């Protein structure tokens, strides 16, 4: 009743309105698709060399990759970057589900493998390494002074989730704290009992410690270096207990700019690229700077078509 009464009045005007609405909707969608639909930089040749590389990179690479990209862009005029930083496991899923990108930099080999179908596997190579460190809030009331304190009752620990590379590395480190290294017999289970949250990426772990909501978290040394000096203190992990995180990088199979993507990967592996990464606290990759045609890491499981 009410409905028909309304639409009955001035139906011509209403129809005009409906038409206008439909028109404006289609215009809006045209605008949106016009800017969003093309593959990254697919319109490459409209001004020679003007391209955009889309880089999916582990959260821990955030500041460093921005710096590297700035330097690369300065040397290669016309190349700009779009970054997607997140937990490597999330990026791997996005790539498998068809996200468009040119480069994937993962914080571990497991997630590079998980992204397998989307990756040009002969281009996979380790480009940098990282180490773990325990971060604790700075200031009074500190609960963790040495590694053994991680197992003390009531200490609140935050780790990255097991799916996140940093989370998996952290579990491996805790597993190495064996009785022969001077830790209690049930150290691992004591630490796991103290875990209050498994965060979705390593930077979220850092944030909870910076806010002092957690008494300790396990992150990369580069994350600790990126946090404000006043916000966190660190408890170093001795070399024999530490886990060396190896970061693989690769070209995405459907990259619109394979040549440029390769150039950026080589830049990261060059002496200058490695210098930038080291400045952020990373460790030089084994094969880096000597030769850029490092041997493929994963050719057998995902043969390149």
């Amino acid at each position, binding site marked *: 009743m009410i409905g028909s009464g309304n639409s009955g009045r001035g139906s011509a005007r209403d129809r005009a309105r409906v038409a206008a609405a439909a028109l404006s909707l289609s215009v809006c969608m045209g605008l949106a698709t016009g800017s969003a639909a093309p593959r990254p930089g697919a319109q490459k040749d409209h001004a020679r060399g003007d391209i955009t590389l889309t880089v999916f990179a582990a959260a821990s690479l955030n500041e460093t990759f921005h710096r590297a990209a700035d330097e690369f862009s300065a040397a290669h005029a016309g190349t700009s970057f779009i970054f997607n930083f997140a937990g490597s*496991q999330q990026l791997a899923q996005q790539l498998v589900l068809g996200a468009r990108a040119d480069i994937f930099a993962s914080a571990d080999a497991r997630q590079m493998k998980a992204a397998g179908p989307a990756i040009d596997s002969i281009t996979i190579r380790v480009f940098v390494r990282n180490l773990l460190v325990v971060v604790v809030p700075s200031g009074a009331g500190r609960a963790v002074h040495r590694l053994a304190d991680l197992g003390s009752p009531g200490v609140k620990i935050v780790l990255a989730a097991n799916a996140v590379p940093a989370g998996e590395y952290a579990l491996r480190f805790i597993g190495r704290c064996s009785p022969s290294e001077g830790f209690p017999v049930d150290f691992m289970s004591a630490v796991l009992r103290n*875990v209050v949250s*498994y965060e979705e990426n390593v930077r979220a772990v850092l944030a*909870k410690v910076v806010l*002092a909501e957690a008494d300790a978290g396990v992150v990369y040394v580069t994350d600790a270096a990126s946090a404000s000096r006043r916000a966190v203190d660190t408890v170093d992990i001795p070399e024999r207990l530490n886990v060396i995180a190896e970061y693989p990088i690769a070209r995405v199979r459907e990259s619109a700019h394979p040549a440029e993507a390769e150039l950026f990967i080589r830049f990261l592996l060059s002496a200058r690229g490695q210098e930038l990464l080291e400045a952020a606290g990373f460790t030089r990759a084994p094969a880096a700077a000597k030769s850029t045609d490092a041997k493929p890491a994963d050719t057998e499981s995902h043969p390149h078509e």
Partner: protein
Amino acid sequence: MNNARLRLPLALAALPLIAFLVLPVAGLLLRASGEDILDTLLGGQATQAVALSVRTTLATLIITVVFGTPAAYLIARKKFPGKSLLDALVDLPVVLPPSVAGIALLVTLGRRGVIGGMLASLGIELPFTGAAVVLAQLFVASPLYVRTIAVAFASVDRDLELAAAIDGASRWQAFRSVTMPLSLRGAVGGAIMTWARALGEFGATIIFAGNFPGRTQTMPLAIYIGFELDLRVALTLAAILLATSFVVLAAVKSLSGRWVETA
């Protein structure tokens, strides 16, 4: 007549948006298998998430009704200085991005927060607990109930209350036997919306309560984390959440539909 003539252009104009709203839902349901849903419901980590979601959202709902009803009555019926300010403040959490809500809760109720610091000295620490999950839900979802029932209170005919008072009813009796029954549909509708919003709450929860299976990992968090670990679990939980939300919304619609008919 006019009605029939307009139907086609209206339908054509509405089609793109309606298709866009419906297709992802259909896509999700197509990818989730019934067998998986049964498996998920019968065991494993997903059950923990479902159980935690049920427990925390019910707690949120009860707290919302107990404290939200007087708040709504105050807003709907009483005049006091700063009323319009309070009115706007109550709505604020609904329009805030949930991540902002989570950070706000953390810096207020966290260990180094204004209130959280005091609580911590009493030995109460909220972050990373089930209580934090409830507080996050309460913050983003309770205003929906308050808003809905306040509108219902405001629309009750004052003459009916007056008549009850003339017949010798006390204020409380008038409220119980006139105002409340007449506002009941609004109350139920608001309560259901609050519950559904609490069930879907993600951003504030993961920031304020963290993610720990069985303790703070509700269904939306399990879906998010599961998406990266085991897509099947994520799809299954998503389908369950979707079905639940649909049933809830349908219930609200039919309730409010009857409300319009009887009015």
